[in-house]
């Protein structure tokens, strides 16, 4: 009996050690990226395409004020309430971060102190960003106004408050591969980069499982945000708009019936307004190429 218990204990220790090893934050190499020079002007396009301000600007801000990334917007989920942190170039934001710090935070979901970020930050999407684009993005954010507004702590209960466990979440759901695979036209490929890597459409438009992982088998097949708000299926299984209709919606916010966009999607329409027409068309081409979800 004693031997049995000792065996169990030994197994538990080995298991815990293995678990600890598995949940350790994994960081990509930034050696190449650190040799790149950031282009702030191009970084601005990446900034809007990636929707940074949509979450990190102060609640309710519009226009120029959205460039002050003081954080504070609230995101209610099944796991708790998350508050977007201050990511402005100040002491309480990302002021003084190295290129490596920035890349790990944006693409690996790991903070400079080595802890995991919650996947409210769409780092699984951003993991696919080109190193040059990330470096340009940092160069642009470094030019924005600094804010001293302190980040609010997330309101997350046990067991979700154990950040280390997010390593397990990343193992299960953190595969950054593109969902739309196969041989694609250059236009669809460009649209895929914008939709899957930058604009992270899937974060709201794809359903999630009980652990908050995206159900990639029903990619863009409709999700739920803020606990109850339904986000539409935007695959051709449901969305029967013409290419011109979708492009008009993304740039003007008007549906073919001349209802006007609301909710979080209003931010997306504002963001898309900063992109060249060819990029908007590429997103439309991508949407038409995504498998239908019924």
């Amino acid at each position, binding site marked *: 009996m004693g031997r049995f218990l000792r065996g169990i204990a030994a197994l538990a220790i080995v298991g815990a050690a293995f678990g600890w090893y598995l949940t350790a934050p994994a960081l990509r190499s930034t050696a190449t990226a650190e040799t790149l020079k950031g282009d702030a002007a191009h970084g601005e396009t990446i900034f809007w395409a990636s929707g940074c301000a949509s979450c990190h600007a102060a609640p309710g801000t519009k226009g120029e004020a959205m460039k002050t990334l003081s954080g504070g917007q609230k995101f209610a989920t099944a796991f708790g309430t998350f508050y977007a942190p201050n990511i402005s170039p100040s002491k309480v934001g990302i002021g003084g971060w190295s290129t490596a710090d920035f890349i790990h935070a944006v693409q690996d979901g790991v903070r400079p102190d080595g802890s995991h970020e919650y996947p409210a930050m769409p780092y699984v999407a951003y993991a696919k960003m080109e190193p040059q684009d990330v470096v340009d993005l940092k160069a642009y954010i470094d030019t924005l106004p600094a804010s001293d507004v302190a980040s609010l702590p997330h309101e997350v209960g046990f067991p979700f408050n154990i950040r280390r466990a997010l390593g397990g979440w990343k193992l299960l759901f953190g595969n950054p591969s593109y969902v739309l695979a196969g041989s694609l036209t250059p236009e669809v490929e460009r649209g895929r980069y914008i939709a899957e890597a930058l604009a992270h459409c899937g974060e709201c438009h794809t359903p999630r499982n009980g652990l908050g992982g995206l159900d990639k088998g029903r990619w863009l097949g409709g999700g739920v945000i803020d606990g*109850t*708000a339904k986000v539409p299926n935007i695959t051709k299984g449901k969305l029967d708009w013409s290419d011109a209709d979708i492009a*008009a919606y993304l740039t*003007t*916010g008007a549906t073919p019936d*001349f209802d*006007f966009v*609301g909710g979080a999607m*209003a931010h997306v329409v504002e963001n898309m307004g900063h992109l060249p027409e060819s990029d908007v068309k590429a997103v439309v081409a991508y949407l038409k190429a995504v498998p239908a979800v019924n």
Partner: protein
Amino acid sequence: MKHMKLLWAAAALALTSVGVLAQDDPFADVVETRHGLMMQMASDLGKMGAMVKGTTAYDATVAGKAAANVAAVASVISMDNFPAGSENGKAADSFAKAEIWSNNADFLGKLADLNTAAGALKDSAGKDADTMKTAFMAVGKACSACHEAYRQPQAQ
């Protein structure tokens, strides 16, 4: 005679069921009216929108009338259309967020913005296509500003 009786019976039945429905959902009419106001604006905006998109040719008379309609409908909307308790989750088919009441001054500010933009569209829609387009886009922004903050997203 027999027919008359039947008619009366049908009328009585209809009245009773209306009464029952109204009792079940006190906000049914209010919500339907709100949606009707929005649909009327969408219908008129659609006429101008088709011209903006270039799917129909610009017609000053049609555009002018449509813009006047939008301005008229926008001017009708008031808190009378939003009685307390008629929000999403409480009243059937309502997508009105509770913030309309908790953040009322801002909501009314956005409604005033819509009226300003709709007034400008009314003044410009009959002039020429480009003038209409600029004013039209401003109305769209006013619609979205309110929908962003005060309408519960709905799956289409």
